[in-house]
């Protein structure tokens, strides 16, 4: 045990004399550049994956058509839908001014007419 400890102490002391190589800013910059390169490749990969997904989707909904055809149909449907969604509530509210969702007083089943107190 004592031998082991003295070996350890000796090793700790001598290893302190080892020169420690410094990590230069140039080296760290090179590492960061490798990250940038990887990130650029990754972004390209994401864009390619998005394109491939879009192409597969367009093949499903509109086989053998160029990509712009289903895309423009989708955009047209979106524009028409948004337009209708914005315009319809205004059309409905101006067409029939007498129409109301309120119920007449006589239809209110829960309205109290003073009879409950007598029952009690």
């Amino acid at each position, binding site marked *: 045990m004592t031998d082991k400890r003295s070996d350890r102490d000796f*090793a700790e002391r*001598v*290893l302190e004399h*080892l020169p420690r*190589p410094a990590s230069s800013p140039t*080296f760290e910059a090179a*590492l960061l550049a490798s*990250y940038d390169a990887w*990130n650029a490749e*990754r972004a390209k990969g994401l864009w390619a994956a998005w394109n491939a997904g879009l192409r597969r989707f367009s093949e499903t909904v509109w086989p053998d058509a160029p990509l712009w055809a289903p895309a423009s149909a989708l955009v047209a449907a979106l524009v028409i839908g948004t337009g209708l969604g914005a315009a319809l509530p205004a059309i409905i509210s101006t067409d029939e001014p007498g129409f109301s969702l309120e119920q007449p007083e006589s239809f209110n089943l829960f309205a109290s007419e003073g009879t409950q107190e007598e029952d009690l």
Partner: protein
Amino acid sequence: MFRTFKGRRSDMHDPDADDVARAGQGDRRAAARLIGKHAPKLLTVARRMLGAQAEAEDAVQEVFLRLWTHAARWQPGKAKFETWLYRVMMNQCYDRLRRRPTAPLEAAEDVADDAALPDTGLDEGVLGREVARALDGLPERQKAAILLCHFRELGNIEAAEIMGISVEALESLLARGRRGLRSRLEHLKRFAGDGL
């Protein structure tokens, strides 16, 4: 690549987990933080394992490339990031050492050469070179164990995880490595005096 180590540590706090996840999503500042924190220590260990600065830098580059490609898939809690990083680095070093065409240094017995040393006192540079030579003369696993525990200041459990061995095996490697260092450097005591 992110293997689960023996003795799963789901409860541990991993200080790098957040930066790894961010770097995997393209956050450059997180990547820079990881580089600034780990590259210098990785380089120190790689330099000692491989001997040549240029090769050590290549190995560390390779480790970081592997890190970027796996960062997005990092699952915190399975293994401590730093442990994984050092394990990849040690594997890089072993691969490079094995690919070398010449026989490994440990095959040649180091002979202490007293004649090369000055009579009085020992220059720090000379001492450093002697220590480096003695360290290079150790078998690669003994050297790895000593480097991980000394330069990385790792506990035995973590160093054993990095090397993929049991704590007892690591302690045995450390003991043999330290004994080997001592027997190779004992002659320096005479020159270095109290410094050793």
